């Protein structure tokens, strides 16, 4: 590892994995997740089956993929709330192109191109025009959703190409075991954990989010870093949207409504500070899994929606409060 001045800016250079682990809030999250799993296993006989556990990994994959992107943006000191609208929007070029060309790769290319355009717009507005990211992405969130409605006339676009690959992408299982969306999300997660921990770009993100002034003095291009983060976030929301579209077998105009709330909740639950500069993708993954297992397990218990909402809300508060409590104790 080259000794450069930016190392001092990185919050955690990761010396011994065990030592860092003990100090990290991931442990608290892991305990929380395990407690949930144990509880649901005792409470419902159909919970702890390989099929159900892999199902949940598949269900979690959408928030996982998008969550990685949003987490990176938040770590860089910004936020992206346009991901829900975008995840819904990419289905339109995907399905339209597939219906015309009978080619899944072309459809995916079209979907990612749309995501790229949105990411560039978001990134430009925030990083280069200096518009607050919540305002900018709230704006694009409304614009994209309105655009979907306007373009589709508030109708979904069915898949008429019936490509087997398209069905398998969101609904098939790798070796008849792990759902493909889960596999894809784990690969993406692994890549970005590597980037955030081992690559200079990861350190730049932490530095820019932690203190942009200092980061600039250290020679980082703050604007460029934020721009790239927002583009990555949009692309990953695009990937999530492609998986969603496959699971829905169509481009659904209401797809992804409220998705941004779920993802932001998971990211913050995962210990990423909205102030920027702090957090880890392992934590984010745990945050996503906690919410997904909670939703699955509460369903298994046949709990009515109203109770599910109350319990989920209560657990989010409790988990974040516990995390904060731990952090404060460590500081003292």
């Amino acid at each position: 590892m080259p000794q450069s001045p930016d190392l001092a800016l990185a919050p955690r250079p990761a010396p011994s994995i065990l030592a860092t682990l003990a100090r990290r809030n991931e442990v608290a999250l892991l305990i929380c997740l395990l407690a949930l799993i144990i509880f649901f296993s005792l409470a419902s006989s159909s919970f702890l089956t390989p099929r159900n556990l892999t199902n949940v990994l598949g269900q979690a994959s959408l928030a996982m993929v998008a969550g990685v992107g949003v987490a990176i943006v938040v770590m860089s000191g910004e936020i992206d709330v346009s991901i829900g609208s975008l995840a819904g929007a990419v289905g339109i070029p995907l399905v339209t192109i597939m219906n015309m060309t009978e080619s899944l790769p072309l459809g995916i290319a079209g979907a990612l191109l749309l995501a790229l355009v949105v990411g560039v717009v978001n990134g430009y507005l925030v990083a280069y025009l200096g518009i607050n990211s919540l305002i900018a992405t709230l704006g694009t969130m409304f614009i994209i959703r309105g655009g979907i409605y306007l373009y589709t006339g508030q109708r979904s676009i069915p898949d008429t190409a019936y490509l087997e690959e398209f069905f398998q992408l969101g609904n098939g299982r790798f070796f008849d075991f792990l759902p493909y969306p889960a596999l894809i999300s784990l690969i993406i997660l692994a890549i970005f954990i590597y980037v955030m921990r081992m690559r200079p770009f990861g350190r730049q993100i932490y530095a820019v989010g932690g203190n942009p002034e200092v980061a600039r003095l250290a020679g980082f291009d703050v604007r460029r870093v934020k721009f790239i983060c927002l583009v990555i976030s949009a692309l990953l929301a695009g990937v999530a949207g492609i998986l969603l579209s496959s699971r829905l077998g169509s481009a659904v105009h209401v797809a992804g409504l409220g998705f941004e709330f779920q993802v932001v909740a998971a990211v913050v639950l995962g210990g990423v500070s909205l102030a920027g500069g702090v957090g880890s993708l392992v934590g984010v993954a745990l945050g996503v899994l906690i919410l997904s297992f909670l939703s699955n397990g509460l369903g298994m218990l046949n709990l009515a929606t109203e109770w599910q909402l109350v319990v989920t809300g209560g657990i989010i508060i409790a988990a974040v409060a516990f995390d904060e409590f731990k952090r404060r104790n460590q500081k003292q």
Partner: protein
Amino acid sequence: MFRIPVTLLAATATIAVMSATAVQAQEIPERIGYVVNYATHEWYQNVIKGMTDRANELGIELEVRDANQDAARQVSAAEDFMSQGVDVLIITPVNEDGVVPLLRRAAQDDIPVVLEGNPVRGMTTMVAICDYDTGYHAGVAAGEYARDNFDGQARVMNVGLPLLSATVLRSEGFMDGLRTILPEAEMVHDLDGGGNPDRALEVSSAALAQNSDINIIYGINDNSAQGGLQAWKASGRSQDGLLVVGTGGEGLGFINLMATEPAYQIEAAMFPEKVGYTTIDAAVSLFNGEEVPEHIVSPTATMIGDEWQQYYSVEGTTRSINWENVNAVPAADACMKTAADL
């Protein structure tokens, strides 16, 4: 007096037979899983009530999971049911195209699926009301009302919901029905009220300010009708010379409105309890591998004035359905128009 088109009468017998006698010789499924679109809404509350009643009668364990209007959550919930191995799956699609892969996966697992509400490509059977027909008959009734009370003038504000094909069909049906009586009837405003009472009120207020020369408010559900009516009242207008037509008969709301608001005279009732009841019967038939029609129609009726009392009784804050009269309401064997025609 509500009118029953002759075509509807013929179909009555088949449905009545199916729900009453066919069950005895059948094997009863142990567990049925229902993925509902939006469980906290009054409409679905009453659908679930009807399902539960019927499931209890037959000794079936009914489990309900709520998609809460989230298409992705719906897929997850159905997935959970399939991995738990329910005998039959019932789905009210959040979006009709969005459950196509689910049907295929259920077929792979040999789990029969009954759709409620909206038709889906590749489905075996669906239990649903006819949205277009429901609006149509209410439109006919509104036309007669306007002919008798408004000198044949019919200028409509449609508090609609373009988001769903079902609600679009209702509005279309209403106007088409109205025009059979009054060909000159005009839709002055075609609004997106979001299906919510507060949003419906907001857009209706603006529309009434733009052009208030209307005398009929049509709401695609009870909340929308109420929002339109409240906007009318809030602008200080009298209800003389106004007719409000609601759709759904979802809960207590419309009963209260018909009792207290002079303009609220017509309700296109859709008997959610009956929908739930019929759906369970369809699930049992499917479980037994019987031939079932692609579309099992659940009946609707146009209620004028206090006719709702034939079907419901109210005590405090609960309404009870009069099964005898509701089961006697005829259902069509096919809809005049469906989402496929849009």
